[in-house]
């Protein structure tokens, strides 16, 4: 090594060490702050509860002085002009939640992708993760803007209600504000240090920042969730709404953890779908095949993230709904069997759209590989099954009909379509849609492979047999136990149907993993997917966004005419559950506004990459 080179190396090395010393200190400070906050969250009784061992007399007096929830009168509500306060807050809150879900979700999978990049040594992952963050950064400031607008709107339009919420949550709201500062700080450091901390051990520092960012972000989410779940199922207060417990008692209501899980998972699916749309947008705008190939790969990854996170969502939703029933059967029935029940037909349409779009994207994606021609003949059968199943799923059970319509129909239920309206038919439909989707995924994975294991024939036959038996089982259980026995067996058979579907998925993954050993890989031509296929990447976030608005509306509406269920009545002019059409229109206003904002974000993100070419001759401004 030449002296000059060794000197340069030494300087670089020293520089590196210095920065390594400075950054960990900054990180240590952040980490300690985070730990302190976490500790406060975990043992808040020590900090806030009057029942804690170290509670002072002053705190005890403070608890005694708590007032009951106010009885709301006309003076407790305000309006901006003739605009409905509920409608205004509805749209602003929904936009804030859309953006917040997105900015909290993106760092979650970005950190995972960054980690995959480190483990595989493939820099494309790192570049993709950075690009995802770039999109998220523009959305972050918009989230804060809508959050601020929402807070001002609530304090302006519902001052007494917000006063009560402040009375209940007290200093916890300042913890939220503190966490927000922390989130902003860590986010900016994480994003802007991307290239400064890219290789070697520094990359691990960067990954740690990612973990810290997600820790703070998730804590923020959980803190905010406590406000929503307190309004649905209040805890830590008595029947009159007087605060009786510490902040931990107030936060950990029966619905808090189910909502935490549901929102956490749903945010990932939602975030994945949005960045998928970004990739689709960039792909359609691409001027070179290399650019198109890059965004095709990015779109595929995003779609994979969205669908992967989407699959466990029904289970999280089931837990939330089970806890709602356990807390109040009346509330559960209002959601699932009462006035809000019709919304679940719209939910079926949206989930059906998501599954159809995901399948359509996979089928189109198969054109990237010549090996897919072996399987294309199957697509029409899968498509047929999906469409028929989708139509069965959305067939309503009870129809509100006029006398003439009933006479024309031949009864209150259609003689042929009526049986499709009940749960056994829908269970068959949903399970067949999931099996069909998995088959599409399996065919996609097999498209770029030539299986070489000697038992390939047996493996394929086994897989086909599993599919056929599972499909026959799903249909038989649904038809026999659904239509020819009583309700007890009907419910029990649905579990066996789900098991059949799970067996297909698990055995499919296991058999494929074993069969892919030593398989010959065929080239995948990224970018060679039809533009129509790319539009599936837009269909997913649109359906996700509307679905999120819909389910959020259901969650909020189960409180019926209560601001805080059983504790604080809503006596405003808007204390009724609007009809589905009105609710749908509101969701559409929020969704279209959000999609316009998303396109703005995409455009701004692209603007950062646009460079004006230097003019050959620059005019002299003085002339």
């Amino acid at each position, binding site marked *: 090594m030449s002296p000059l080179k060794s000197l340069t190396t030494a300087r670089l090395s020293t520089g590196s060490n210095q920065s390594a010393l400075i950054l960990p200190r900054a990180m240590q400070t952040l980490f300690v702050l985070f730990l302190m906050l976490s500790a406060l969250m975990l043992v808040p009784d020590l900090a806030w509860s009057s029942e804690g061992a170290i509670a002072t007399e002053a705190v005890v007096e403070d608890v005694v002085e708590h007032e009951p929830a106010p009885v709301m009168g006309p003076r407790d509500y305000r309006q901006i002009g003739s605009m409905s306060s509920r409608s205004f807050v509805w749209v602003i809150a929904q936009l804030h939640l859309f953006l917040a879900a997105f900015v909290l979700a993106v760092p979650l999978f970005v950190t995972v992708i960054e980690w995959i990049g480190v483990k595989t040594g493939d820099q494309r992952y790192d570049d993709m993760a950075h690009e995802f963050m770039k999109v998220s950064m523009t959305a972050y400031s918009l989230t804060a803007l809508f959050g601020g607008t929402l807070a001002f709107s609530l304090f302006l339009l519902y001052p007494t209600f917000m006063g009560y919420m402040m009375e209940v949550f007290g200093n916890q709201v300042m913890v939220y504000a503190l966490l927000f500062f922390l989130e902003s700080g860590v986010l900016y450091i994480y994003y802007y240090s991307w290239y400064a901390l890219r290789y070697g051990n520094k990359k691990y520092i960067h990954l740690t920042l990612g973990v810290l960012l997600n820790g703070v972000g998730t804590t923020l989410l959980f803190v905010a969730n406590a406000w929503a779940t307190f309004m649905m199922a209040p805890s830590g207060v008595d*029947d009159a709404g007087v605060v009786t417990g510490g902040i931990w008692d107030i936060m950990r209501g029966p619905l808090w953890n189910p909502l935490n899980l549901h929102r956490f998972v749903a945010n990932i699916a939602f975030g994945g779908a949005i960045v998928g749309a970004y990739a*689709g*947008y960039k792909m*359609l*705008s691409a*001027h*070179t*095949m290399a650019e*198109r190939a890059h965004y095709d790969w990015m779109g595929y990854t995003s779609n994979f993230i969205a669908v992967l996170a989407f699959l466990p969502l029904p289970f999280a939703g089931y837990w939330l709904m089970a806890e709602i*029933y*356990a807390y*109040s*059967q*009346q509330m559960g*029935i*209002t959601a699932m069997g*009462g*006035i809000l029940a*019709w919304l679940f*037909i*719209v939910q079926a*349409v*949206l989930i059906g759209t998501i599954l159809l779009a995901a399948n359509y994207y996979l089928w189109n994606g198969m054109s990237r590989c010549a090996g897919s021609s072996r399987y294309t003949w199957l697509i029409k059968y899968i498509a047929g099954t999906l469409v028929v199943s989708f139509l069965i799923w959305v067939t309503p059970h009870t129809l509100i009909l006029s*006398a003439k319509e*009933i*006479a*024309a*129909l*031949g*009864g*209150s239920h259609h*003689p042929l379509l009526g049986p499709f309206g009940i749960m056994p038919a829908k269970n068959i439909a949903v399970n067949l849609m999931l099996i069909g989707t998995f088959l599409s995924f399996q065919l996609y994975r097999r498209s770029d492979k030539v299986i070489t294991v000697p038992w390939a024939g047996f493996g394929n036959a086994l897989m086909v047999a599993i599919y056929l038996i599972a499909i026959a089982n799903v249909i038989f259980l649904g038809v026999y136990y659904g239509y020819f026995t009583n*309700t007890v067996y009907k419910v029990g058979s649905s579990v066996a149907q789900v098991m059949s579907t799970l067996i297909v998925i698990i055995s499919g993954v296991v058999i494929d993993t074993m069969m892919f050993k030593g398989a010959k890989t065929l080239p995948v031509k990224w*970018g060679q997917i039809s*533009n129509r296929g790319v*539009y599936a990447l*837009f269909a997913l976030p649109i*359906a996700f966004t*509307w679905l999120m608005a819909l389910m959020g509306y259901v969650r909020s*509406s189960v409180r*019926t*005419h209560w601001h805080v269920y*059983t*504790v604080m009545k*809503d006596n405003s002019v808007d204390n*009724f559950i*609007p*009809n*589905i*059409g009105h*609710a*749908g*229109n509101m*969701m*559409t206003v929020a969704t*279209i506004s959000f*999609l*316009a904002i998303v*396109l703005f974000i995409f*455009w701004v993100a692209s603007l950062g990459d646009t460079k004006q070419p230097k003019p050959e001759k620059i005019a002299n401004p003085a002339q």
Partner: protein
Amino acid sequence: MTNTATTNKQAHTLQDADFLTPPGKIPVIAKVLSFMVLMVLIFTGIANLLPQVEGQAPRDIKVDLGALTMGSYIAMGETLFKGKGTCTLCHNNLGRAPDILVLNMEDTAAQRLSAEAYKGEAKDSESYFLESMLAPSKYVVPGYGKEGDPSPMPTIDKAPIGLTAVEMGAIIAFLQAKDGGEPTVELPTDTPEIEETASTTAEPAKPAANAEEVLTKNACTACHAVLDSPSTIGPDLKTIGARSSREEIRESIINPAAVIAEGFPPIMPATFADTMMVKELEMVVDYLLASKGDSAKENSLSTETEKKGE
């Protein structure tokens, strides 16, 4: 061989170029936005096609208890049972809780009080009904409870339902009277403020225009072969006029448990005496009496009944 390879390569290159959006066309952002708006409008359209029902909050109304009779007190109880009390949310034919509107509650109360498993303090149907509302877990009907927390039923005098003592009395009067029993609750003398849902305070319901409408409104077609329904859950009503008298038909509607047709389950609701107006009942009886399998006759009578109704 080389020529073929070259041709394939050219074809491949052309294929690549085909994927790229040519300049000068509609901007991508416009196309994407249009696609998004179109999809959202489809979802909105579906939401607007579904039945449009509003869920009104209960509202306070004053009841003049000075003018209250036992009949109107019972009627108030029924209104509360189906409205503010939200009882029918679970107590219906879906199996979530005993179907109170179908059961004879006086007989049911007597059975429960004499059951070995009953550990409550009630002595008669009035106190049993009150106890069921204020302490639902005192006695849970076998098959309906849940582990740990015996009854999922909320305490009726607490939020979110929050019925007053007068309102609970009205419900007890309704439960005692609905199957022909004599209410034992006393009429209230105070002047409380009670809540009603908007639906219960709306204009009085108008009677149906003809027998077909009554049969449809009361979902008779769900179980019986009548009008165009082929249902076989209950007896065929298309020929009932040939085998039953006017009195028997009327009895079957207002008290279905009196005579159960052989081979059919005893599932017909006993609520039509309460829910069907006298005029409606007579229209249906006339219609069914004329239903002897002769459609021309049925139609002419239906029209005649409709005219009478005018």
